[in-house]
């Protein structure tokens, strides 16, 4: 019972921290807005300056919600990949999903410039990038799923995912070699990742797909726990291994693929959040880990985004750099403190 109690305490603390980070994230930014005004505009009350309302409701609020979706979604897909592949180094992108998305975007941005003509006009559209990234990751996913159907060995799937990733990366290199500097820079900026690009419509679509991915993850909790024993034990416990593996791969791909399509590749979060959660809770039980990863992912992403904004300055740092700068020390510190990696 004591375990249950202490878990409850950590969960209440995490929920509190999430709310705090959420409000803090919205309060901070290049424009200084008084705390009262932020709360009033969030709740729909009158605020002295109309621009404040616009900044909070049209820019900061969607960005904060995006941060929550990205952090929790990538964290959960990383958790599932680490359990499925029995590998603490696995993350949401081991199946080549980011590389697929990058390839899609690279083809649109750099390929179009090579062909020239009517295509160049399309590049500026945000939706073109999103659709290209989705298509890219979807094609890689399809290839991985076809392989997963044929191959019995989970480790083989992991290697094949990595190979697909390498192939996509190679094609991107070839494309960039032939591309003009301007397009190269545009592709480079996409690769840095960004949370602040989504409007409410885009956010709504992202949220719907995210919910489907999370729902599939929750359905996989029992199978994930059985996979902790190994696949043969899972089978002897009545788990349909092939089907469960299929659902886990789909859920991961939906989450990681869609998030990458909308925000660009966000590194590190998917790998680090599950480790942080395991160390803090000292458990491998996915019934505890999954909700905890959702919370931790959201909190850390909100903190990273707040830092990336460099409050009160006009600069915004690339989010990809901040996630690693903030996340790595946390993981190292936890490992040093506990002296033992929990996996």
């Amino acid at each position, binding site marked *: 019972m004591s375990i249950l109690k202490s878990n409850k305490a950590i969960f209440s603390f995490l929920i509190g921290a999430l709310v705090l980070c959420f409000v803090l994230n919205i309060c901070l930014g290049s424009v200084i807005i008084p705390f009262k005004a932020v709360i009033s505009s969030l709740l729909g009350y009158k605020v002295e300056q109309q621009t404040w309302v616009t900044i909070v409701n049209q820019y900061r609020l969607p960005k904060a919600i995006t941060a929550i979706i990205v952090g929790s979604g990538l964290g959960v897909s990383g958790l599932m990949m680490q*359990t499925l592949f*029995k590998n603490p180094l696995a993350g949401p992108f081991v199946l080549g999903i980011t590389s697929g998305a990058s390839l899609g975007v690279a083809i649109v941005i750099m390929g179009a410039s090579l062909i020239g003509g009517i295509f160049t006009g399309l590049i500026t559209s945000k939706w073109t990038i999103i659709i290209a990234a989705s298509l890219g990751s979807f094609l890689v996913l399809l290839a991985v799923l076809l392989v997963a159907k044929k191959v019995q060995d989970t480790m083989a799937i992991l290697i094949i995912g990595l190979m697909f990733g390498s192939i996509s990366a190679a094609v991107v290199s070839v494309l960039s070699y032939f591309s003009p500097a301007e397009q190269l820079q545009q592709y480079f900026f996409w690769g840095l990742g960004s949370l602040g690009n989504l409007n409410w419509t885009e956010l709504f679509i992202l949220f719907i797909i995210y919910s489907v991915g999370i729902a599939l993850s*929750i*359905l996989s*909790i*029992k199978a994930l*726990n*059985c*996979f*902790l*024993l*190994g696949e*043969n*034990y899972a*089978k*002897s*416990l*009545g*788990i*349909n291994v092939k089907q469960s593996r299929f659902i886990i791969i789909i859920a991961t791909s939906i989450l990681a693929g869609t998030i990458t399509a909308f925000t660009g590749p966000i590194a590190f979060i998917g790998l680090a959040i599950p480790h942080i959660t*395991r160390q803090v809770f000292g*458990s*491998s*039980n996915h*019934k505890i880990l999954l909700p905890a990863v959702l919370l931790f992912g959201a909190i850390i992403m909100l903190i990273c985004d707040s830092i990336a904004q460099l409050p009160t300055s006009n600069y915004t740092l690339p989010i990809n750099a901040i996630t690693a700068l903030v996340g790595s020390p946390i993981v190292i510190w936890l490992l040093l403190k506990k002296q033992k990696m*929990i*996996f």
Partner: protein
Amino acid sequence: MSYNTKMTALKTENLHIGYRSKKQNITIASNINITLQQGELVGLVGTNGIGKSTLLKTLTQVLAPLSGNVLIKEKNSSQYSSNRLARVLSLVLTEKLASKNLKVLELVALGRQPYTNWVGNLSKTDLPIINKALQLTNTVHLKHKRCFELSDGQLQNVMIARALAQDTDIMVLDEPTTHLDMYHKAYILKLLKKLSKETQKTILFSSHDINLSLQLCDKIIVMTKENVAIGTPKDLIQQGIFKTLFPKDLIIFDDLSARFRMST
């Protein structure tokens, strides 16, 4: 007479085992006819590579038979859904745990998965069964330890507790005594003997510890290149089957003491 009134737990009819490939079937052993009764402790012995694992895999539905039938509780094993099968047959395998970070209690509780709801919540009826499994295997004091903290012998005990928690009529163990010292080999086999008597489970295990198995098992299955024989240790010794098991240049079987010893 009570022998006949007991239920047949596991039975094979003209079973041929092996591997299927596109070109041809590779037969490992053929015409296997064995019957295991309820409450029996049965050891499976044979030389390395003779097909003990293949036989166990076929009996437990991991591999499909090349031909013939496996009957589990008088019903063809292919008729069981994976969940139904998990309620009548539990396994202890040689493969390592994917996560050694699990607490012993969590690990044993996973044995209840076939009976839990979609998210795997334990009900009130599950807890006494888990505690009983821990008591029977003398692992209650290990409850809050993590698996990486256990010795090989303790871990094997806990894996048996997990299989017990699955509450099945049949338990199959693949080489449960490998990597253990002589004392713990005896300890595990003695535990299996006790469990088969106290819980009336049919327990089948493969082992290279023929000397110990002969002293404890109700029946022994001997796999040789020629055939698969089953019988009580006494009958099999009388048939002289152990004399043909290994080449005679290093070890010989002594009928009187019912054990192998160095040939001098």
